[in-house]
């Protein structure tokens, strides 16, 4: 015998204003299996909840329907009420008579009819709902962090300092990311290395952080709490355990090629570290330019290495790691301005990017901090910055990259400090100085005589003899087209998603936002989570950010990951699909439609059957529809329940 209690909420006048709640309650009380129906002014209030709780206990209710606001508002509230009264929380249904009835219709009689129908449907469903219990799974209490820029570094340190293990995988040969390329940082003009290197050293010394550099994650399988990652540790062409980082090999290597790390503003050797404070301080042999590897000649590094560490033939290694949560902190790429043809980058030598300027301004950079013109090495006296290159642009990226205004102002100030006589112009559309201390910083630049020119730069051309770039721009404050001959132009390039980000995206099943960056689970309320349980985002991998925002998000991602792995076990939603193995013939159609790889076909003694991994299944029901035998059911969303609900509203059955 089923004892269903139905509770109808007035929601003040929100429902009662349009629905005849008293009349409705009387009708509902007569429905089959409904042993009581009650109405109350605010069902979600404490007394409302008590009403339900007491009835469950005293009147032996075994199922409950609440007719009130959308289940998205209070389903969980009422589930807790059921649980506290000792009733399985899955034996609850909500009839949405506010958002989907009283708020969208005006006619009292018809809306009341509709509310009755919605309640009938809920009664039909709850009658057949099964009690479900959450499953628990063991959790591997370690976190994988992919990418060791400032975001990955911060996340790793936070997790390790709380006492959990971290596997940190960095693609490049040193950790540090883009921040290590920067000279100084806005708005305080701290030297980037001075604030970053201590953290890098901390990573290398922390026993809880297992660091893989010059490595990439090749494969990830599993689910929240239980992931497996396959890591490729690329060969550096030497035995890392022997290398002491003395640097002799780099010194003696005869081959020089343009340095990617210096954004082609300087040269590096064929065996090289990225920068003097690299962590780990172990070089890599660039196989494309090493003379010994390409031509079989040279071999100088091997000869000079006092530790005998060089091993040209060394191959990549593969390592498997098990983890419970993943933080993606793979960062950004700078926008490549070659596609903005009108600016002549790559054609006019004295047009450079903001990141190239950072390398010039870096005390340990190719020019030891002196800003010089690429064409003749002269010190430029008239310099212009062009803002929003590749950002806020219909032809490139629509979004704002959020750091370019501030880094242009920063570098303008730094140059002005060095050479007060220089003339500096910043061509902008809007100056976005939104962060703490940023507007003040902008003001300081104005006071220091940096000239702000409002208007988008139309084009840049070159005076052939002097190699001086000339900016032609629409000055929207003067209302005229201006031309300005300069010694050097710096393009403030924005941020774009990393060129290889789709690999990570596919591997983890992440979504990408329209701008191409990884998508968060909710733009406002879940900005560090992803839609894949157990996977979090930190830093610019999720969208353009400056360092303070990156660090803040990295700390958020650490706390998200910790929330997962700080428990030994994990509760999984029981609202998932289930196979009736008596009916299953193991055809695998269900496996083909599952986006999560939750289904496996296993061979039993005589036949094959499909098995669903309850930890991976998300409960979308795709497999149930694909099954031609009807052997898969999505719990509490079965055919019979659906038919009963349809019958309740259409067939007049009760």
């Amino acid at each position, binding site marked *: 015998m089923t004892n269903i209690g139905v509770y109808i909420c007035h929601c003040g006048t929100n429902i009662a204003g349009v629905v005849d709640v008293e009349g409705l309650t009387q009708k509902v009380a007569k429905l089959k299996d409904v042993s009581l129906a009650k109405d109350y002014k605010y069902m979600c209030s404490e007394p409302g909840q008590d009403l339900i709780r007491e009835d469950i206990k005293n009147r032996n209710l075994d199922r409950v329907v609440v007719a009130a606001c959308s289940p998205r508002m209070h389903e969980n509230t009422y589930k807790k009420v059921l649980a506290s009264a000792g009733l399985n929380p899955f034996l609850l249904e909500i009839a949405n008579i506010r958002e989907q009835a009283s708020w969208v219709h005006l006619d009292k009689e018809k809306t009341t009819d509709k509310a009755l129908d919605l309640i009938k449907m809920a009664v039909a469903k709850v009658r057949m709902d099964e009690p479900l219990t959450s499953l628990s799974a063991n959790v591997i209490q370690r976190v994988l962090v992919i990418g060791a820029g400032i975001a990955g570094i911060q996340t790793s340190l936070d997790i390790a300092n709380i006492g959990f293990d971290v596997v940190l995988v960095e693609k490049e040969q040193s950790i540090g990311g883009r921040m290590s390329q920067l000279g100084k940082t806005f708005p305080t003009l701290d030297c980037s290395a001075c604030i970053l290197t201590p953290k890098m050293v901390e990573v290398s010394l922390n026993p809880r952080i297992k660091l893989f550099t010059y490595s990439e994650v090749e494969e990830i399988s599993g689910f929240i709490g239980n992931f497996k990652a396959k890591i490729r540790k690329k060969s550096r062409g030497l035995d890392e355990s022997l290398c002491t980082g003395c640097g002799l090999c780099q010194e003696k290597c005869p081959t020089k090629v343009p340095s990617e790390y210096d954004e082609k503003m300087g040269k590096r050797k064929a065996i090289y570290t990225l920068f003097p404070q690299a962590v780990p301080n172990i070089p890599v042999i660039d196989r494309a330019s090493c003379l010994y590897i390409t031509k079989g000649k040279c071999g100088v590094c091997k000869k000079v290495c006092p530790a005998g560490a060089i091993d040209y033939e060394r191959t990549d290694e593969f390592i498997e790691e098990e983890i419970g949560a993943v933080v993606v902190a793979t960062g950004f790429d700078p926008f490549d301005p070659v596609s903005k*043809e*009108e600016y002549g980058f790559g*054609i006019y030598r004295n047009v450079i990017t903001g990141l190239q300027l950072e390398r010039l301004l870096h005390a340990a950079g190719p020019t030891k901090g002196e800003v010089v013109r690429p064409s003749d090495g002269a010190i430029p006296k008239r310099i212009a910055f062009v803002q929003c290159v590749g950002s806020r642009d219909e032809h490139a990226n629509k979004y704002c990259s959020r750091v370019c205004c501030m880094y242009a102002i920063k570098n303008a100030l730094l140059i002005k400090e060095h050479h007060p006589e220089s003339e500096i112009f910043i061509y902008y559309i809007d100056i976005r100085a939104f962060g703490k201390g940023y507007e003040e910083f902008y003001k300081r630049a104005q006071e220091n005589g940096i000239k702000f020119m409002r208007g988008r730069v139309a*084009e840049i*051309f070159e005076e*052939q003899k002097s190699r001086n770039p000339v900016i032609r721009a629409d000055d929207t404050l003067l209302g005229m087209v201006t031309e300005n001959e300069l010694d050097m132009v710096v393009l403030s390039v924005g941020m774009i998603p990393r060129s290889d980000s789709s690999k990570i995206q596919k591997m983890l099943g992440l979504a990408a936002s329209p701008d191409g960056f990884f998508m968060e689970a909710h733009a406002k309320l879940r900005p560090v989570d992803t839609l894949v349980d157990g996977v979090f985002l930190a830093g610019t991998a999720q969208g353009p950010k400056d360092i303070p925002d990156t660090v803040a998000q990295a700390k958020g991602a650490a706390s998200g990951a910790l929330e997962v792995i700080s428990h030994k076990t994990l509760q999984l939603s029981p609202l998932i699909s289930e196979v009736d193995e008596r009916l299953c013939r193991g055809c695998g159609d269900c496996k083909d439609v599952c986006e999560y790889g939750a289904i496996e076909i296993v061979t039993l003694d005589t036949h094959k059957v499909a098995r669903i991994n309850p930890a991976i299944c998300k409960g979308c029901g795709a497999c149930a529809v694909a099954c031609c035998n009807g052997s898969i059911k999505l719990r509490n969303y079965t055919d019979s329940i659906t038919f009963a609900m349809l019958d309740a509203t259409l067939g007049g059955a009760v």
Partner: protein
Amino acid sequence: MKEYATFLGCIIPNRYPGIEATSTSILKYFDIELLPINGASCCPAPGVFSCFHLESWLAIAARNIAIGEETGQDIVTMCNGCYGSLAEANHLLNGNKELKDKINEILSKVGCEFKGNSKIKHMIEVFSEDIGVKKIQESMKNTLDGIKVCTHYGCHFLKPSEIKKHGSSERPRFLDDIVRATGAESIDYKDKTMCCGFGGGVRAKDIDVTLDFTREKLKNIILAGGDCIVDQCASCHLEFDRGQAEIKKIYGEEFRLPVLYFTQLIGLGLGMEQKKLGLEFQNIPAQSLLDKINGGRK
């Protein structure tokens, strides 16, 4: 033999018959036949008309395409303006069924139907893609060595680049490649991709503004040391040629810079009879250039 339906537009038959004559006979040399489109009207001009009344503009352009399509061939134009109109109309109509139906309803009144089966091509594409730079180079009889050419691409062939898709719209190269194939030197000059001044109906409304543009371009070319302009558009051609005469009349400034359509330059290289190039119908004599070429030959 390849065939194209030829859309001549207004300027070529009325003012610069040399452009058609040279192009037709050179194409014949390369085994490409140009078929006439009988009853074609003004394209009509891309920017101005379409701004005033898009549907009227589309209907007229669609009619021109429709009667061109009847030849069963792709349509070729020799003017960027005509190209702009026909190519943009073709693009709009083929991408929007509703619009296409609406325009065809209008066209049905004159017994015409736009099907959208033909490609709209520009003469420059026929030379750089169908014939190719290599073949042009190999057929040269006269050396144009030592001639300094300033090329002018014009706007409507390249832009809007989303629709036109001819590669780089800020630093295009194909016309320079053709110039180099003739043996002449293509030299860079300031504001090469700037408008000639003709466009947007400005010429009709505000001749001062138009000539201001033209003068600036001419000055930049002279400063760079150009012997002539080579263009690929009948409108730009008119602007530079007639514009020089007008500048002389109004401002008393004289440039005497010969203006050649690119096929006229190829014609010179092929050793075509100079009468056939139609240069004598132009305002600015090309004698200085011809002397330089002939001098070079000696």
